[in-house]
């Protein structure tokens, strides 16, 4: 996909920009302050103050009191973000924090962890990779991500609810069936239709972009 190449180019540019930024500050009149580093700390501190409690509450509501405990998931999400070097590309810090936490919560579900490992290994063997959501990816693919969410608007309420339960809460179809009374066959069918809609919308978006070059 040519769009991937564009994204890589953007990413490299952004990286080069960040590097020259911190280099400039260090040579600026001998000031011993690394601006990029200070900004990163400020970012994490603010994120913590503004959203930690909300996140714990939100996780408790979504996944229950544990285990895994909401506090643990939130703490882990935090340490992950604090270890990132490219926080300045995070445009919506709260959403990024929540996304990281959801990801963490899901990988604690064994079947999901096993499934992801399996899928990634399989794709790797046939020469394909998928990207996790990182600040860089959100920055360089924001238009594509927006296209996914925008096309999600054209799904039915039921399809969106199924995506929420399956993708965000990590429920198996048996769990969903127990909660909603919908049959497993119906759940599979609806989700497949939803995926067809989303992927088609994204293909249309990519083609459109290609044409407008």
């Amino acid at each position, binding site marked *: 996909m040519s769009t991937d190449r564009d994204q890589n180019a953007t990413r490299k540019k952004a990286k080069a920009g960040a590097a020259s930024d911190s280099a400039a500050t260090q040579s600026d009149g001998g000031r011993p302050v690394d601006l990029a580093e*200070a900004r990163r700390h400020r970012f994490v501190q603010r994120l913590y103050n503004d959203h930690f409690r909300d996140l714990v509450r939100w996780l408790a509501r979504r996944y229950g009191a544990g285990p895994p405990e909401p506090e643990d998931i939130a703490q882990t999400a935090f340490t992950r973000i604090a270890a990132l070097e490219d926080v*300045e590309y995070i445009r919506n810090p709260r959403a990024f924090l929540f996304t990281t936490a959801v990801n963490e919560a899901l990988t604690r579900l064994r079947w999901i962890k096993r499934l992801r490992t399996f899928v990634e290994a399989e794709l790797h063997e046939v020469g394909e990779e998928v990207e996790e959501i990182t600040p860089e990816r959100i920055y360089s693919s924001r238009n594509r991500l927006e296209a996914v*969410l925008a096309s999600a608007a054209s799904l039915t309420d039921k399809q969106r*609810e199924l995506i929420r339960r399956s*993708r965000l809460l990590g429920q*198996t179809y048996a769990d969903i069936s127990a909660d909603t009374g919908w049959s497993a066959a119906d759940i599979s069918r609806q989700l*497949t239709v939803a995926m067809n809609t989303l992927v088609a919308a994204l293909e249309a978006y990519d083609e459109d972009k290609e044409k407008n070059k």
Partner: protein
Amino acid sequence: MTVRADYPVPELSGKTPQDQANAWLVYLNSGGVPEEGRKAFSTWLRADATHARAYAASEQVWRDLGYMPEAYDDAVAKSGGARKPFAALSRRQLGVAAAAALVFAGIAVWQFGGSETAAAKLYASRVGEVKTVRLEDGSTVTLGAASTISVTLSKQARSVVLERGRAYFEVAHDANRPFSVNAGAANVTVLGTIFDIARNTAGVRVSVVKGVVMVAPDKPDASDEPVHLTAGQRLEVDTSGALGTVEAFKAGDLAWRMGRLVFHNESLAQVVEEINRYRTVKIALLDEELGKTRITISIPANRTDQLLSVLEATEPIGILRTGNSVTVRHLKKAN
């Protein structure tokens, strides 16, 4: 899990490679896929060059759907009334977020460009991780597992907030800049010394290894006089800010930095709370009475299951282990 008849391998005939890929994705995410199902997927994936690319596209979209979870939150809250919550959301949150991001970046640069005194820095450890950080004033702090501190160093003062968990401070002496730690209900002030602060749901415990520290409740109208603690003394402050009595402790009680968790005559509830910071599979106590049991124990931080063996040997308890939890309850007594 056994083979489930509810999830037959997807029907692929007459479908485009992309639709086939989507069907496989939905199949794999059902949560009930047997080994044969995975094998069938592997075979399909390798059967044609277009399959691999199609599946990668499908998987990427699925992963991307994890971004902005609050989108789904709102969607559900409003699913009764609002017609297209997603449309509203993508306009409001995506559109505005772009503008907000620019403003945010602007503010950050502006704040650091100015002569602002000091920015707080956050340090955090993972579950099970003990780590030592060196502060810019030369002090070192060892964080217990799943602990977070926020540090602000200025010309006049050094202040730390123990947001959660436990920390062992070795404070570099600086008479002009007092070093203070807030841990919820308690404030601790020193000039240079070594001490440990542990914060949990019951309150805060301050233990002094070297030097003198001053402990005061964190209340605007604190009627309690601050208490001076010297080496070998410790003090507990409950969540309301009430100071306990000063008592002695042994140096070995602070062995957590060396990977050993030591408890002397502590309530089981508190022991479990601390131990859980070192465990991903948490221990849950089912009854409050059991939590009040006092115990004395010393165990390796990476083998906290030993607590359970000791309990089993000494208390009439039942232990239920599942994949991701351990539940402990009192076995029925005569009363």
